[in-house]
């Protein structure tokens, strides 16, 4: 089973990512991460299942999750390329605007050097890219002791701490 970083530990990933699914086709059984649009189109049939997560593509607005984030197993946001930074804003909106407290997973082109930024924006689980050394990737969270600006991990910017 593939590995995953979750809450700063390496765990087994027991969900299967479904990248495409034909319109009208049934969702696979078992633990699955479905495209968000497919979930929205088949919400009635899927809402009763407790083993369905959804994933958002980087060119889809985070607002698609507005009504469903409370009923899915977790939310994943795709980074089709590590240089595509839309997912960082989505994570903050999902956490801070939708007040989502469940698992938020980064999938796709997820590399060591992004983990610190991703974690600060609200991701707590990371399906690091297959060819990444997952043990070494754990060091990515330790890049900085302090941060100047507020983010999801700390809503209070450093200047407030400095002022005491």
């Amino acid at each position: 089973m593939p590995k995953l970083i979750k809450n700063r530990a390496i765990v087994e990933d027991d969900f299967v990512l479904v990248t495409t699914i034909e319109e009208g086709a049934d969702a696979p059984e078992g633990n699955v991460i479905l495209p968000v649009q497919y979930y929205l189109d088949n919400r009635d049939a899927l809402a009763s299942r407790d083993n369905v997560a959804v994933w958002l593509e980087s060119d889809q607005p985070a607002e698609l999750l507005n009504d469903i984030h409370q009923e899915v197993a977790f939310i994943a946001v795709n980074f089709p390329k590590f240089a595509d930074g839309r997912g960082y804003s989505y994570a903050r909106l999902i956490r801070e605007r939708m007040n989502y407290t469940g698992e938020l997973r980064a999938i796709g082109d997820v590399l060591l050097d992004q983990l610190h930024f991703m974690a600060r924006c609200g991701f707590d689980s990371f399906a690091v890219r297959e060819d990444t050394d997952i043990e070494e990737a754990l060091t990515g969270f330790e890049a900085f002791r302090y941060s100047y600006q507020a983010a999801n991990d700390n809503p209070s910017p450093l200047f407030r701490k400095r002022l005491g």
Partner: protein
Amino acid sequence: MYVYDEYDHAIIQDRVKQYRDQTRRYFEGKLSEEEFLPLRLQNGLYVQRMAPMLRVAVPYGMLASKQIRKLAEIARKYDKGYAHFSTRQNLQFNWPELADVPDILQELADVEMHAVQTSGNCIRNTTTDQFAGVCTGEVEDPRPYCEIIRQWSTFHPEFAFLPRKFKIAVNANTESDRSATDVHDISLHLVKNAEGKTGFRVVVGGGLGRTPIIGSAIRDYLPAEDLLTYLEAIIRVYNQKGNRLNKYKARIKILVKALTPAKFAELVEEEWSHIKDSDSKLTPELLEKMKSYFTEPAYEALEDNSPEFEAKLAESKGFANWVNRNVAQHKKPGYAIATLSIKRPGHAPGDVTDVQLDKIADLADQYSFGEARTTHEQNIVLADVKKSDLFAVWEAAKEAGFATPNLGLLTDMICCPGGDYCALANAKSIPVADEIMRRFDDLDYLHDLGDLDLNISGCMNACGHHHVGNIGILGVDKKGEEFYQISLGGDSGKLNTTAIGKILGPSFKRDEVVDVLDKILNIYVENRQEDELFIDTFKRIGMEVFKERVYAKAN
């Protein structure tokens, strides 16, 4: 000047450590070229034609003498004894070894400097008026706000992978705009509202490059306390909606244009409404604290008139010329702002040697409270010189080779490194600049021509800001051969008159450029009315007159 505390030190030291590890993983093959690229770029490291180029951040242009000496040392130790001032007030080294960069960063960190976000698709160095805090006509000193922006933007986790590079400039002067503010992704103009409270007029979507656009105001007054939350709202909208498929359409200016400024403003206001009262709202205490870093140095109470200064002016024409051109009025009586011109024949505009850097540090220590500033026009400013010391400064500057009295004149040109160094360039720019400097070396003629911005870029990326030069020269590639396109009528430097130049016509071969420039200047001289500047004559008589004369002979 801002001084690091334990947090700033920790953040920059952690960055050095992180970058050392990234470099190690790159050399071990654990990071591919493609993966290493944005990481090194966010640390100012390009891989250029000759060698890597390291761009060191000079936040809002401020340098302490010990920092200047460190830069000189780095130029000696890791480079070929040269450094280059860029139009974003930064400083570049052209010959460092990739493997040495972590050590260079460590040396920089030791003097509270870094190369964070000087390149890459992230928020770049915030620039401002090099005369900030010492000039007349200022609403308020913009530097505390620049430092607040610097800290907020440093390793901003949400905005490390934007669609494109992102540049912010702050202007606080009601008469001038010395940092080409309105051709930035975000330009902030300090203003006071009816109650006398400080805030910003917020302009977005300016930029040069392939599609030059002057920014649009999306808010006439933003209270100063809301600076960071509003910036966050703007960039969050851009991060989500900016074009990521085509790099030429990825700048915020294209998004603002496509949506219309009004619609863009609406999206920003909506976003902002959710975060405006968050903890990122600035407090009066923070604003006061930040301002305390930029308080006045220990000025002496002086008469504005200095008899020694007046005597030297009368005695030496060379000194008088220099004062007339390179010295600006200071807000304090008896003090002056002196600009050291880095432009001279045989040297690329903006290039300084390690020896010159050391000299600048000495002059700063001796005459200007140990500080100097870099400028958008690639020069160096000693901001707090006593008038009675100006003659001594001039003599020392002359000896060091940066006393050319050409500030604002034709030969004080902005010029990118071009094809000699830059891997992106279509054509060389330094030799063109050099030929111009050699041809127009008659100072009397240059002074007679008066204020004239000549800007040269070696490619469409417009690092030399050719679009906003009164005369702009752009290197273009035609089937592998270098050509140069000339534009006229660009303008920057004053408030609310920023303009993009118009193309004169078909481009020229390199050996034709100087002659064409000569013709353009002759047309101006023949047509100008009393004391009329080039740009004003151009506006009055229009492009056709220039076009007809310049291309007449060729036909």
